[in-house]
């Protein structure tokens, strides 16, 4: 895995991949896409990085504890936004009924809670996919914190 061409091309590609993933997440409610696809694209860019620069390089990897915190926080944020609906006097996971501003259709920040939910899904999916890959691929199961 020390091929120079692979490394250079990877370095060139990763920013674009991540930008594309972000685009898919943020415009998921106005064009095809959404949290799952975007999160996975971001995760694939990180997996590409891991593959090109070696899986055992400690400095380059998303630290397990960071991944763990993002995962749980993604899910907790989803629940929290849902509970926001209850606090505002409507049902769990309410959007318009709870009075979230819907904005102008077509903008990035439109659709009330939908953008927030999509972003939390995207974060969660990205960190989950990278964790799954790293854990299945790495040779020796070492203890995480």
């Amino acid at each position, binding site marked *: 895995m020390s091929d120079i061409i692979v490394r250079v091309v990877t370095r060139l590609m990763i920013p674009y991949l991540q930008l594309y993933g972000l685009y898919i997440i943020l415009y998921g409610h106005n064009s095809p896409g959404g949290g*799952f696809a975007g999160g996975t694209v971001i995760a694939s860019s990180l997996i590409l990085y891991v593959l090109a620069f070696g899986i055992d390089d400690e400095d380059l990897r998303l630290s397990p504890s960071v991944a763990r915190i993002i995962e749980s926080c993604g899910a907790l944020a989803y629940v929290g936004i849902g509970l926001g609906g209850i606090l505002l006097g409507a049902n769990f996971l309410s959007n318009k009924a709870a009075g979230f501003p819907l904005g102008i259709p077509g903008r990035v920040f439109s659709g009330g809670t939908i953008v927030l939910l999509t972003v939390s899904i995207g974060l969660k999916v990205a960190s989950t996919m990278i964790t799954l890959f790293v*854990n299945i691929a790495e040779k020796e199961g070492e203890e995480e914190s």
Partner: protein
Amino acid sequence: MDNLFYAMVFIIFLTGFWIMLRQSNLIKKIIGMNIMESAIFLFLVAIGYVKEGSAPIAIDANPGLAYVNPLPSALILTGIVVSVSVTAFALGLTVRLYQHYGTMDVDEITRMRSEEL
């Protein structure tokens, strides 16, 4: 033969089912599982399809078009993620079983276990 589409989807489904039941190699079983599940998802999306329909996006901008049913697509998005989770967990188990037994073959593992007892 209007419903040849469904018939072929069922053939794929059965192929996946057969791979999953009959292949003794665990990786093959897992691939078969994915094939089976995506055949089901294809079936669901095909249910919601409308001839000459377009994707249910920006409907107010293009009135008068026929649109496909959006509900199956939304269900499938959930289903795909579920199937990748099952796949990941099953692969983890496969790797561990390989470390213990030195094989991924279910029949072989069963034989080795019955010899041990």
